[in-house]
């Protein structure tokens, strides 16, 4: 190959190596970052809190609520490789606890156990599959005059 030909292909080769490296890092990283937005919803007509503005269109699908207030954002960096998974806990208003346990990675998604507990009693048990960058909403636990909505998002590390 001539020198000019090599110079033409060099940027392409660099970009390909970078892409392969990044893809390997995603596959080999046995950790997942879970972000939980805790949102309070009621009928007081105060609109959507800007802190959860990115979820506005999703939240407004819940008919019957007119206020969506952010009550906190919790980020958990959990190992997926531990036997049984490394549990993460998020304390919720009203004494409830959200327990998240990543069980494994399937392709570009994480399989997750999610449980809402109160006083040692499980109100909800579920198994979720969250794609990298995906979010699932869990709503309904009663709090004050409204309900809690949890937005659980996953990012593979």
């Amino acid at each position, binding site marked *: 190959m001539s020198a000019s030909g090599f110079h033409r292909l060099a940027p392409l080769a660099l*970009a390909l190596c970078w892409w392969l490296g990044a893809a390997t890092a995603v596959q080999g990283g046995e950790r997942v970052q879970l972000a939980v937005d805790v949102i309070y919803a009621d009928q007081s007509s105060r609109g959507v809190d800007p802190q959860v503005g990115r979820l506005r269109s999703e939240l407004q699908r819940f008919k019957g609520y007119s206020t969506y207030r952010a009550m906190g954002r919790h980020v958990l960096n959990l190992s997926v490789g531990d036997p049984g998974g490394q549990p993460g806990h998020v304390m919720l208003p009203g004494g409830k606890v959200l327990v998240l346990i990543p069980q494994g990675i399937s392709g570009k998604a994480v399989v997750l156990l999610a449980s809402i507990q109160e006083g040692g009693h499980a109100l*909800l*048990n579920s198994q*979720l*599959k969250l794609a990298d*960058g*995906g*979010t*699932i909403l869990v709503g309904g636990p009663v709090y004050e005059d409204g309900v809690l909505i949890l937005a659980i*998002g996953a990012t593979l590390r």
Partner: protein
Amino acid sequence: MKSAHQTMEWLVMQYHDGQLPDRHRPAVEAHLVECDPCRRYRRSTQSAGAWLQGTAADAARAVEMGQVWRGVADRLSRPAPARLRFRRWAWAWRRPARLSWLAAGSLAAGLFLLLVNPYGRLPATAPSETYVAFVEASDYPVMVFTPSQPGAMTVIWLFEPPKEFSPST
């Protein structure tokens, strides 16, 4: 319809211009010997032609070609308008060597945006691999809302239990 005299003037003019067929030339020459008006007409035609030729030559000599070329050189030395310079620059990217650099740069930029996402964390999307595999709630009626439209999020909703509902029942 032409009169006989008009016809003869036309023939004399053709004779003068060398356009008259050979078979008619002797007849016209014989007529010119005998006819004074036609001879005058021929002389006037000859003098008019000579004047026109001289005038055209004078006009051609009056045009100084050096001045014309100086004007052309002056226009060529001026910078091209911005519109033309941009067109030349854009046209230069059609060269294969430059096109390969452009393609490599576009590919690298695309991969950078795809993998690094420098504009912050990933948007709140619900890719097709996101779903609820299993759910149970002992105390609450529970429903799973799976979105029908692409991009919408799956929702697990716990409904408030009815007053008469209790875990023991």
